[in-house]
């Protein structure tokens, strides 16, 4: 019964794995609920900021902020948001695939790319393939704080202001529903007035306090921060959802594996019994 014992051990080990994946699934499910709530809670800020930006783009200000002026594309900045941990299905791989496709496009056009990465997974992946990473932040945890993201954002917006980069993109996962997370590339800078429709046709301008430059500087910085922060919060929700689904399928797989192994085990055991019986009967017949 040597084979039988081996199979029994194997079944036990698969069962242990299943326990782990099931636990991870449940943890991810409860975390997903919380992160999803947080994602919905942060949405109004990003929406309101975007709305103000739309208004600003349509105001006829004598001051033109550099964030709203399109320049010739020679170098672009990308802020890429990934998860810190793995075991979340194809979430990060899909994101990186989109990133690579775009990086390659830009390379063909002779446009250089500066990357800022958020999250351990992206940091490891892009460092290994030798992309130009100029800033990174990792270990945001399940509740990303704006303070942790300010570094990379400031780095990129400063670069943009100094003319080192001519456009700024955000690459992250968008939460469609629990089963679907879509990697998305969004252009943050420059902001194009033509692309935004505020539904206002007449000529008007704000009263600025203290002056247009100072307010717009602050507002546009805030807008970029809101987008990146929203992206980070959304990515956490995506991560938990993807992990939940991945772990559920892993648990199911373990279940199938156990069933198959159990079948083999029963067969071999039965075969052994039959053989023993046959031997005894043969022995009895010989006497």
């Amino acid at each position, binding site marked *: 019964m040597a084979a039988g014992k081996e199979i029994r051990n194997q079944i036990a080990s698969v069962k242990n794995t299943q326990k782990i994946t099931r636990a991870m699934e449940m943890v991810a499910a409860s975390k997903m609920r919380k992160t999803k709530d*947080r994602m919905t809670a942060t949405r109004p800020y990003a929406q309101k900021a975007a709305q*103000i930006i739309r208004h600003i783009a349509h105001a006829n200000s004598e001051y033109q902020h550099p964030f709203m002026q399109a320049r010739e594309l020679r170098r672009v900045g990308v802020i890429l948001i990934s998860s810190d941990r793995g075991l979340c299905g194809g979430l990060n791989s899909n994101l990186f695939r989109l990133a690579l496709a775009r990086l390659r496009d830009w390379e063909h056009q002779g446009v250089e790319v500066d990357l800022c990465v958020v999250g351990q997974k992206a940091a490891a992946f892009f460092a290994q393939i*030798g992309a130009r990473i100029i*800033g990174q932040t*990792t270990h945001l945890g399940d509740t990303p704080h704006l303070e942790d993201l300010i570094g990379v954002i400031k780095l990129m917006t400063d670069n943009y202001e100094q003319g080192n980069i001519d456009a700024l993109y955000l690459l992250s996962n968008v939460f469609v529903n629990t089963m679907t997370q879509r990697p998305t590339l969004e252009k943050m800078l420059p902001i194009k007035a033509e692309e935004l429709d505020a539904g206002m046709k007449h000529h008007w301008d704000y*009263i*600025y306090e203290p002056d247009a430059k100072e*307010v717009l500087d602050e507002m546009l910085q805030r807008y970029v921060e809101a987008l990146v922060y929203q992206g980070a919060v959304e990515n956490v929700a995506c991560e938990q959802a993807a992990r939940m689904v991945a772990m559920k399928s892993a648990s199911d797989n373990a279940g199938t594996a156990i069933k198959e192994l159990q079948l083999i085990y029963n067969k071999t055991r039965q075969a052994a019994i039959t053989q023993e019986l046959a031997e005894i009967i043969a022995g009895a017949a010989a006497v």
Partner: protein
Amino acid sequence: MTTIHVDIVSAEREIYSGLVDMVFAPAELGEVGIGSHHAPFISKMRPGEVRLKVNSHEELPFFVSGGILEVQPHVVTVLADTAVRAHDIDEAAALEAKHSAEEALADRSGKIDYAKAQAELAQAMQQLRLLEKYRRK
């Protein structure tokens, strides 16, 4: 009395949204009171109190540690900061982000090894496909 719609949001959550009689906010150059049909106005805010006058006598106070105030004739938007932010803190954070990238990246060639990247991704995708296949079986 005509009312004006006000939205107060912070990065973390929506704080208030609804119709009020009047909004008082600590604008950069002093406190402002805003009623319906105010001219378009945008200002930075100092740390202080945003007060909403509702039902003509009640007042709701909200503390903000800075932010942006935007006024359109029928809607007031307050982007509130809840955390204290200073210019030098931002600067330090930027430097730190840069530093951690430099540390992690000894080889800064800037040339992307697409073959290697493709191989890595293909490997990951292969694993996923395998799982998928196993699942369907």
